[in-house]
């Protein structure tokens, strides 16, 4: 999709600078125009982190750099970044200006790489892709230019796994979601590299990527290129789970697939699943009377204006665990065409009990999707609606008197710290959040 975008809900290739910020003591160095970092921060940022936002080094391209090239300036900024900012890993990312004028970023960066400085470059150019795709290139660049060089060995550590799931910051709940995934995987006996955020061990953990016995990709498309790269590079097989596992049904399904793939002790894993499900459904039972009897209306139909991984994960969860039926799903992550059928297939098999048809629209123009949603909602005036969207959808939700759970950037109407929706605990959290929003509408 390449046309007009109203209310874009992702950013450009340079947006992967936020993935650098998500690595402990990671320092992005932007070789870009002066406003690029700020634009990314404004859409997907959640504070500066360690050295993001206005702390991040940037060459701040000006006219002379566009005319005469900016390599000299880049060299100077890199050199001084090492002096000024105490980082474990520095990543040079290029914006539109340098990409069009053709600065040789690889050559400049390699001057520092030969001295074994922990520095990586990714030649992007904002216009080259969105930040979903560039996240994959960033991770692969770090693997090739940093991990491969500084790793201790290629020796496989049994039960060590690398997980490629939420994209830091683009997924507003990335931190909590990674935590949730790590927890359930550890509980079934794996050692887990999540690579980003609080629950990771920073660059030391990155250096153990080659030691993992296998990789897990969560989501229908982002991360696949990383896993394929690792398959060739370190002979690691990978398992793909096509959406965020939210709540008991999907988390248990996820864990069973992992257990089978990794040939874990099935009995132990089953015992864990039984135990977790028992706890989980005690809570569900507690609130079942509310769900069944509440006389003033709770949501019955859900629309998503979200990325593919969220739309799928939440639709499955809401249908099976709360009885909220999926209406049209507007997928706004600009998912490449070759993965679209895969997503549709997942929606077709959303129910194990009956054939369900879910309308799936792939269009990153969220403004257009809002028009479609509003049109569709006219047919369901008898139902209370739930929208899984972003702060852009507040107006529409108000207009339709729908409940809005924000699961996509931009997020301006709630504060997120370590909230996540993955795993058993994440499912309970999602239920609390959804009905909290519903109940808060009553006086």
């Amino acid at each position: 999709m390449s046309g007009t975008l109203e209310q874009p809900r992702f950013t450009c290739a340079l947006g992967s600078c936020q993935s650098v910020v998500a690595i402990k003591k990671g320092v992005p160095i932007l070789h870009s125009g002066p406003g690029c970092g700020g634009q990314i921060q404004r859409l997907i940022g959640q504070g500066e982190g360690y050295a993001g936002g206005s702390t991040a080094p940037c060459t701040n391209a000006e006219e002379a750099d566009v005319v005469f090239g900016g390599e000299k300036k880049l060299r100077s900024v890199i050199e001084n970044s090492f002096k000024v900012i105490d980082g474990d890993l520095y990543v040079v990312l290029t914006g539109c200006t340098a990409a069009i004028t053709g600065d040789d970023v690889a050559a400049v960066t390699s001057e520092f790489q030969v001295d074994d400085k922990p520095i990586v470059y990714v030649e992007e150019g904002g216009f080259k892709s969105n930040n979903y795709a560039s996240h994959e290139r960033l991770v692969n660049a770090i693997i090739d230019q940093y991990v491969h060089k500084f790793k201790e060995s290629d020796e496989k550590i049994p039960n060590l796994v690398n997980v490629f799931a939420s994209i830091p910051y683009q997924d507003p709940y990335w931190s909590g979601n990674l935590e949730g995934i790590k927890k359930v995987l550890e509980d079934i006996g794996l050692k887990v590299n999540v690579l980003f955020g609080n629950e990771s061990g920073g660059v030391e953990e990155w250096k153990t990527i080659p030691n993992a016995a296998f990789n897990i990709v969560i989501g229908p498309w982002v991360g696949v290129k990383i896993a394929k790269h690792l398959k060739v590079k370190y002979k690691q097989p990978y398992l793909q789970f096509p959406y965020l596992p939210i709540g008991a049904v999907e988390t248990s399904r996820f864990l069973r697939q992992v257990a089978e793939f990794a040939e874990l002790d099935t009995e132990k894993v089953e015992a864990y699943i039984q135990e977790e499900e028992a706890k989980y459904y005690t809570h569900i039972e507690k609130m079942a009377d509310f769900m069944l009897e509440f006389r003033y209306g709770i949501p019955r139909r859900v629309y998503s204006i979200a990325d593919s991984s969220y739309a799928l994960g939440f639709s499955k969860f809401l249908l099976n665990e709360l009885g909220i039926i999926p209406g049209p799903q507007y997928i706004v992550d600009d998912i490449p065409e070759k993965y679209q059928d895969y997503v549709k297939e997942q929606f077709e098999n959303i129910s194990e009990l009956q054939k369900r048809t879910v309308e799936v629209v792939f269009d990153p123009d969220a403004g257009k999707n809002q028009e479609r949603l509003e049109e569709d909602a006219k047919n369901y005036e008898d139902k209370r609606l739930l929208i899984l969207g972003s702060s852009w959808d507040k107006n529409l939700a108000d207009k339709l008197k729908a409940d809005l759970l924000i699961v996509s950037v931009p997020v301006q109407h709630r504060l997120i710290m370590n909230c996540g929706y993955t795993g058993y605990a994440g499912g309970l959290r999602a239920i609390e959040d959804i009905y909290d929003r519903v109940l808060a509408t009553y006086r």
Partner: protein
Amino acid sequence: MSTINIAEPSVQIREKRLGTINAFTGAASEIVQQSQEGSLKDAKRKFSQCLGCNAQQAFCQLSMIKDVAVINHAPVGCAGEFADFNFTYRIEQEKRDLPEDIGRYFSTNIQEKDTVFGATKKLEETIHIAYERVKPRAIFITTSCASGIIGEDIESVADKASEELGIPVVTCSCEGFRSKVWTTGFDAAYHTVLRGIVKPPTKKTKKINVVNFWGSHVFDEIFERFGYEAQYIMPFASIEELEHCSEAAATIHICPSLSTYMGAGLSQLYGVPEITAPPAYGIDGTDGWLRALGKVLGKEEIAEQLIKEGHEQYVPQIEKLKERFKGKRAYVTAGAAHGQALIHLLRELGFDVIGASVFHHDPVYDSGDRDMDVLAHAVKTYGDVKDYRVCNKQSCELVNALIRSKPDFIMARHGGMTLWGAKLGIPTLLIGDEQFGIGYKGALNYARRIDETLDSIEFIKNFSKHASNPYTEWWLTQEPGYFQGGGSGGCGGCRTGVK
């Protein structure tokens, strides 16, 4: 004085028009003197951190005009701010009792192939989509680094669309790399409105243009006393109101760094007088501003009356609070003119202002009128500020300066800077609403908020105990202006302005 030429599609950038600079280390009196002599020199930094760009400031002024659609001719990343401004737009709608709506902003989504084959077709399509969806009274097209470098002829696209649709479709040249001074983006937005929207006057109205962001409507009450009405521009004005802003009785500024291009434009093109006294911050600043306003409107006696009332009502309360600030050392970090106004205000409240890091410096404004020089005024009234830095929003320079000067209190005017005060355990205040501090009441407002901030020391101290610091030992032992070198490398040649 700069000449406003609306026949040109692009605004002349600030560094050329006004001689604006981004780096200085010295005393306030020195920068004032060098500004007057025209001897200020800029410096190139050997290390730099993320700034803002023209496009953001242009969008800031264009995006909340009530009945427009804005198209950003750019890759999707440049649209990061859409949501941010939409959030502001909606909150401020509510404050103004306006119906709930969203801002209508579109990205042409320039991609790699477009940088090779051109993106004007995409722009045409986007204009039509925006028109169909929004039916706006005008469409603005803001440019980007990408559209600028590939050399798009967007001017003819806009002209053609304007003819087809029967509404103004006006371009705004605000490529990020175009100017090193991001406030050029404000000028670009005003240039766009001056050349594409504002019509020559057919009558004089009783309105006074207030060129501002989306601040509170503090001028309503003041102007009413003079028999006039405030016309806030550009956020929340309609296209029709902007068409007629040439008919106003005067233009005032809340911050000369923001809006002197608009003021000078309306003055030069349509004879709308501009109040060039420093904005009404602080008691003394408000006195001067009211007198200047009274003079332009020919109602000096009303100005004197307002001054008298203001003093009676607010000064005693301010005096009481001043006791608590006596001897406290304050540091200011802000844009340019607003920061200078804050210096003046803090000193009036009894603080010892030990230093300031402002983002840029305009040696003169578009009117050419030296009266507007807020810093000169501050230095003349309360004496010099020895440690005055132009830091271009480089947080490394600010952190370094703060560690050296160890102030008791920091007053900030831009996002992204307060965090550093708090990390160092220094009570820090940022006030978003520029109009919050206007007038006598504004001085009291500020005094109260400062008092509140100084009182909240428990949180700041606890936070600072646990805060991380990404800066190296090495950096924190260098001079804050270390990187303001002219390209010579080592620190010997780079301490521009250090005595």
